[in-house]
């Protein structure tokens, strides 16, 4: 009898445990990094840990290649098939939020304390996305080259001024040792142009759009500061200080390492190759200050939740779980990216105090400025890219900037102000 009772108890326990084991509600997560084994491995680890840490939610990942990820999201939005958790490139986020693809996050108070400004995606006063890392740009240089030419090594506190930077480029070009003094990366067409070059415009005091209203670019892009930026930019090409718009992508990838270029404007994702090639001789220097402060671009891929998610509380729980320091460190150690918090940077292999890439974290903290936070960013970026390309190729600067402003304003008008005001 006892044996029968024990069996019944066991069966009852097993039956009651079975629903518990399968009680986790599935949350879909779409991720842009298919084909990126390091990043993928870390994310899979985060998901595994999250799924094991609680019994309510189970995250299921679908991976997409980065180049086509945005198209897949837009197609899914059209077909009403968005996932619960969305991976989003920061400048794209306002467009997706405005289009109704994304909902604001609802994280615990203080969850984002200590995050780099570029890692927090804020739109219309609400946090829509958060990144586990940031991408940072610096001037790549070699200490031996600068010292051989009596060039001061700039610091965060005292970056090169615009005039000083120009003189540095002239000096390096005059040595005859380099094909060009400075490689800005003209071979990397597309978003690189806006991400990397618009900070120069901002350092001159201009911008692509008036960030007070987000309704006009007049006088901001094509005003005095814009003109000064355009003249400097065009002169770089006229004086042969930088490679032209037809730069060979191969030269962009290897030119600095091969000694073809003295300096290079590049992101932290390429820093490990420079350290491997030059060791302690490799330097990563702050952006020059053209009068309105040194500025670099900020914000990379981040996680948000879709507006159609039936389980926003689960999606928020996953994101809050993923932004723990231990995972920020993992992403940095495996992928080489800058961790999103100082505490994670201190624990990381590359960005800790005295680490080979420590300087990048300081650059991000001190100089980062996110790209304009507007749903019209995609058009803004295209107009900027076209303008800097045309100016580099010798077009009339004022006419080019005016044309870019006209394009931007027409787009804002066509879209009713993108929600920033009545047009």
């Amino acid at each position, binding site marked *: 009898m006892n044996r029968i009772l024990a069996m019944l108890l066991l069966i009852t326990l097993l039956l009651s445990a079975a629903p518990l084991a399968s009680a986790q509600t599935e949350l879909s997560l*779409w991720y842009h*990094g*298919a*084909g*990126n*084994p390091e990043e993928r491995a870390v994310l899979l680890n985060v998901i595994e840990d999250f799924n094991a840490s609680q019994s309510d939610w189970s995250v299921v990942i*679908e*991976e997409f*290649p*980065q*180049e*086509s990820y945005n*198209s*897949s999201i837009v*197609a*899914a939005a*059209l*077909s*009403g*098939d968005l996932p619960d958790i969305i991976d989003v490139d920061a400048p794209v986020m306002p467009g997706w939020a405005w289009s109704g693809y994304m909902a604001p996050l609802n994280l615990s108070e203080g969850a984002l304390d200590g995050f780099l400004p570029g890692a927090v995606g804020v739109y219309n006063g609400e946090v829509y996305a958060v990144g586990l890392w940031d991408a940072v740009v610096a001037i790549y240089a070699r200490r031996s080259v600068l010292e051989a030419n009596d060039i001061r090594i700039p610091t965060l506190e005292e970056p090169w001024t615009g005039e000083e930077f120009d003189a540095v480029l002239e000096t390096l070009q005059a040595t005859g040792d380099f094909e060009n003094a400075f490689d800005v990366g003209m071979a990397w067409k597309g978003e690189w142009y806006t991400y990397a070059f618009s900070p120069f415009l901002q350092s001159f005091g201009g911008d692509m759009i008036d960030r007070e209203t987000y309704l006009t670019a007049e006088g901001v892009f094509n005003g005095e500061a814009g003109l000064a930026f355009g003249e400097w930019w065009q002169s770089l090409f006229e004086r042969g200080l930088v490679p032209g718009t037809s730069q*060979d*992508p*191969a030269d962009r*990838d*290897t030119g600095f*390492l*091969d000694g073809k270029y003295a300096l290079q404007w590049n*992101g932290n*994702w*390429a820093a490990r*190759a420079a350290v491997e090639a030059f060791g302690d001789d490799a330097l990563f220097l702050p952006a020059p200050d053209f009068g309105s402060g040194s500025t670099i671009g900020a914000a990379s891929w981040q996680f948000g939740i879709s507006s159609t998610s039936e389980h926003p509380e689960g999606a928020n729980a996953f994101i809050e779980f993923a932004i723990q320091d231990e995972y920020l460190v993992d992403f940095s150690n495996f992928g080489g990216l800058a961790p999103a918090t100082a505490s994670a940077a201190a624990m990381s292999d590359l960005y800790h105090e005295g680490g080979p890439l420590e300087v990048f974290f300081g650059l991000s903290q001190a100089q980062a400025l996110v790209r304009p936070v507007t749903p019209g960013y995609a058009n803004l970026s295209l107009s900027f890219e076209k303008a800097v390309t045309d100016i580099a190729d010798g077009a009339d600067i004022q006419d080019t900037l005016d044309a870019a402003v006209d394009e931007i304003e027409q787009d804002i008008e066509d879209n009713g102000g993108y929600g920033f005001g009545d047009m």
Partner: protein
Amino acid sequence: MNAMSFETRHNLSIGLRYALLILIATIFIFPILFMVMSSLKPDLQMLRDSASLRAFLPVGDISLNNYAEAFERVPIVQFAFNSVFTTSVSVAASLLLNSMAAFSFAFLQWRGKAIVLSLIIATFIVPFEVIAIPMLLVANNLPWIGPEGIEIGWLNSYHVQIIPFIADSLGIFLFYQYFRDLPDELVEAARIDGASIWQIYARIVMPIAGPIVATVAILKFLVMWNAYIWPLMTIRSEELRPIMVGLQYFFQLNIAWGEIMAYLSMVTIPVLIFYLALQRAFIESIATSGIKG
């Protein structure tokens, strides 16, 4: 003397002709040679070699590492299976359906035939990009019988990659053009002998349509093998993704050029095999009907 000079001229003419043919062949072969040679080199060496003739030679640090790494980065076998499956089914179904449609236009009499044919030919001018989004919305609302009964929506499946591309206006047109040029006596004689329409199609017309079958098969194969935009829009799961979408896996922050070349080399092989297998019939089709692929 005259005979000698004629022979010399003749030899010179042949020599020049061969030189020209070799030059043209070289122009076509060099990109493939560059691709294969680059697939054997590390990224930095490949980029450095790209500005010289070394780019076309197996020199330097040669290995199959890029192939091994490409296999690690991308589930190539799965993607290749998906592409072979969707392409094979599409080509077979397309040949059957389009040839039957063309047979109807060429040999059967029915009201409105000319208008329908004109409408089909008119769709040539509509690029796929224009109809992609409407197609997506339609596909998302179509019923399908799945393992759990009737389901709504075709997305994320093999059939969404196949069915929309079976009926093909170009295929119908090419078959129609070929059938129209066949002698009427052929069909009439079969009719007099009592053959049914199906028998005429299957036993009289299709057996002599080899060249056009090869042409339509090659064209359809290329379209399906290179499918990119539509799978991007409709396929969510890696398990169902075709091979061309896999190319995007290599475009990371630091682009893996060597692996891209290895992947492309592998992707190109089936296309070359398929083309070479049908080459004779394809050329015959071009020669006899003036069709340009």
